[in-house]
């Protein structure tokens, strides 16, 4: 049984995968499939920890490198909040600003929903 569930902020991952060329799409799909099986036990070099409890899933096709940014959430959810093609050597704080913003939006909405459940 695959214990982990892949989730995404809006359509961030689906749209990125659809825009990738076939080679990159297949590499990323393969690693995503493994991620469902292994969850937080998935090892380097295909995934790696970043700052602020974010992780990256790596894909490389020739000289092009893709990065899918995710975090582990409750109920064994793996939530993807950003995806982009890597330009520099390292993922910087600036690269993670969108991921951070999207995670905040998710958390804010969950808090609102929890507050609503407590009232009703």
């Amino acid at each position, binding site marked *: *049984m*695959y*214990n982990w*569930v*892949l*989730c*995404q*902020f*809006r*359509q961030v*991952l*689906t749209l990125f995968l659809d825009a990738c060329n076939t080679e990159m799409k*297949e*590499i990323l*799909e*393969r*690693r*995503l*499939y*493994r991620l*469902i*099986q292994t969850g937080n036990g998935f*090892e*380097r*070099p*295909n995934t790696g920890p970043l700052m602020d409890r974010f992780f990256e899933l*790596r894909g*490389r*096709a020739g000289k092009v490198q893709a990065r899918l940014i995710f975090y582990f959430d409750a109920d064994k959810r793996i*939530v*993807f909040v950003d995806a982009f093609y890597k330009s520099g050597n390292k993922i910087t704080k600036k690269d993670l600003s969108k991921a951070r913003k999207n995670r905040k*939006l*998710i958390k804010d*909405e969950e808090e609102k929903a929890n507050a609503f459940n407590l009232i009703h």
Partner: protein
Amino acid sequence: MPLISSIRLNVLKKLKEDRGYRQRFFRGQAADEIAISIRSLREKRKKRQADLAKKAGMKQSAISRIEQADYFGWSFRTLFRVADALDARLRIIFEPTETVIADYEKREKETQLNEQFTNVHTANALIKEMASQELPIMKPDSQALRSSSLSAQG
């Protein structure tokens, strides 16, 4: 539109139907496995890439390349040298496609069953909670029901 949604990968379907996709998928998996195994065993042995390279009679850059998941240029000779240097057994298994697909199918079915089980339990818990709170939705208005059935008849 919800902020967060689950993703379904249609990998199993493609593996079953597309032989080319299947071959690329399995080759990629093998490369991933080699990179992951070498790196994790090297870290377990508390060796740096340079240490391993020295022991295997290779360059550090060669070890770095093998540890990259997208590298396909290794040979059995190289892998045996790395295995010896790490004091490990190198094992090669040929798995028939039908066995791999059957295993994936079994896992996906179990996952779907588990999801349905969770959904049913969540729904049951929700119904019980609504019943305990005596929400109006659980108590249809008898007057309204009678008038609606009369209008349906008439």
